[in-house]
């Protein structure tokens, strides 16, 4: 299954605005994107509650994975938003 490691670019971590943007991006993909942090099982990136439960801070490395047609495009889109400092544009 295609997977990728990404460093969380949002200083405040994956909650608030950055978490909402990540979830919305996942919901817009054709395939299910799973996201995980070390020592926790992967969760559905379309679930805001699951994404918050990762407790990912700025600078943490997260793993995203997807399967099926369009998986690579989905991972590209997810990596792009995860790497940005999404709180800085506010």
């Amino acid at each position, binding site marked *: 299954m295609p997977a990728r490691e990404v460093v969380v670019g949002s200083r405040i971590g994956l909650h608030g605005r950055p978490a909402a943007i990540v979830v919305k991006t996942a919901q817009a993909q054709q395939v299910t994107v799973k996201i995980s942090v070390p020592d926790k099982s992967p969760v559905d990136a379309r*679930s805001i509650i699951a994404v918050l439960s990762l407790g990912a801070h700025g600078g943490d490395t997260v793993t995203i994975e997807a399967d099926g047609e369009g998986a690579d495009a989905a991972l590209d889109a997810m990596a792009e938003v995860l790497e940005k*400092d999404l709180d800085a544009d506010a």
Partner: protein
Amino acid sequence: MPEDMNGLGVSPGRTAGPVHSMGSPPVLPAETPQPGPDEAQRAADALAFVSSSLDKLAGSLSGDAAEVLATQAMMAADPTLADAVAAKVAEGRPAAWAITDAIGEQQEQFRSLGGYFAERAADLADLRDRAVAWLLDVSMPGLPRPGVPFVLAADDLSPADTALLDSSVLAIVTRRGGPTSHTAILARSRGLPAVVSCHGILEVPDGTPVSVDGTTGVVAPVSAAEADEVRESGRVEKERDAAFTGPGRTSDGHAVPLLLNVGGAADMTADAEGVGLFRTEFLFLGRTEAPPVAEQETAYRALFEAAGDGKKVVVRTLDAGADKPLPFLGLAEEENPALGVRGLRTARVRPTVLAEQLEAVARAVSGTGAEAWVMAPMVATAAEAAEFASLVYKAGLPTAGVMIEVPAAALHARQILASVDFVSIGTNDLSQYTMAADRMNGELADLLDPWQPAVLQLVATVAEAGKDLNKPVGICGEAAGDPLLALVFTGMGITTLSMSAPSVPAVRAALATHTLADCRRLADLALNAADAQSARKAVAGR
């Protein structure tokens, strides 16, 4: 008449008015009824109702409030939550009970993550209350509407509550919550006085007039006539503060430059006397490699130019570490990140990052007319300070200093000042390390109070050393923005105060209405107090 209550002041200002408490959340009947045939559908309908009503509310607002509500609506519509609720229904729980159980478990998970994540538990509680009220067909929990200006009392405020606050709310007092709660953030952005962690507030009967002081954290029952007086004097104070202009100085002309804490050129204000803390982390965060010297130079130059000719800009070198990790530093995970390789200590592992940063600062400042002072965070010994200073001078920068955040550095301020040109005290970390209390832990808010006499004693020790060696000692923690503490620090001999821009007017006004001798008396009162509360009270009483 109930007694005065003490909480944590999180948004300055004084006002008074009748207390009215938030509508109480629905309570589940003690006896769990037999589930009906359509509990799964009812639970789903309740969550859908909550999600759509929050979305609608979000649509009627703009900015942060709208965003926060839209996120909460997203939580109500969340598939993970829906699955958990469905599982509870399958176990035989009626809809309202299933939602209560499922959300309770999710809250535990958020709380175990601590910090910001733990505070999202309040968002979930609000969802639950709305869904349960809908299912039990009782009135929605929410804001009181007494029809007169009032002091809002609550256990804690949810984003939905805060979004709906209108101009009839004079101040906010909550029983729980810390400095990063929604209440604190919202109140500051609206300029509303606020006190959090005020334990007795929910026992005050609705309609009782109270005064609220968002600086000292005191909430006191008053008569209706007194309430009018306090409200009027609070309004006058605010106007008076805004009327003072110009550089920071005491009423007898002792200059105390009021500098800004900034993260970039956008944070500068037109009347700023300079920058007391330029945080440089923004350039480094989210990077897999250190930003090139040329890129750093461009970013730093923008701030030096914004500060302008002859203005001082104190640049803090990269403050990262295990608690604020940056992948390119390649630091190991630590058991105790706050006590680990952070601040200047990262230069032990990756010296080139610091060398390049100093080079970029030196190049950026040339030709801008600004004065670049450079300081290192997280210094513990005079040897570290001396080594850092030699690197700064070698980069061609004339003014080197260090931050005093570690108690060891405060105790050895004299030795440290002997090898650098200035120091700046970071009160947030100094409190954390002196009181051995994690900054991110809202439960320990009382220990992290900057009025703790032990912390003030360390500040005074550093100020004394500065006077003896005739070198500047600044403060760049949040505490410098507290108008009363600003007087205390001035009395100790602190030479500059650095704060976020919204804090400047009140501090400028406080200084302008006190002599240096007044400030010295206040410093003595604070230093000799038995505890943080009596220190604050003693100073506020003068």
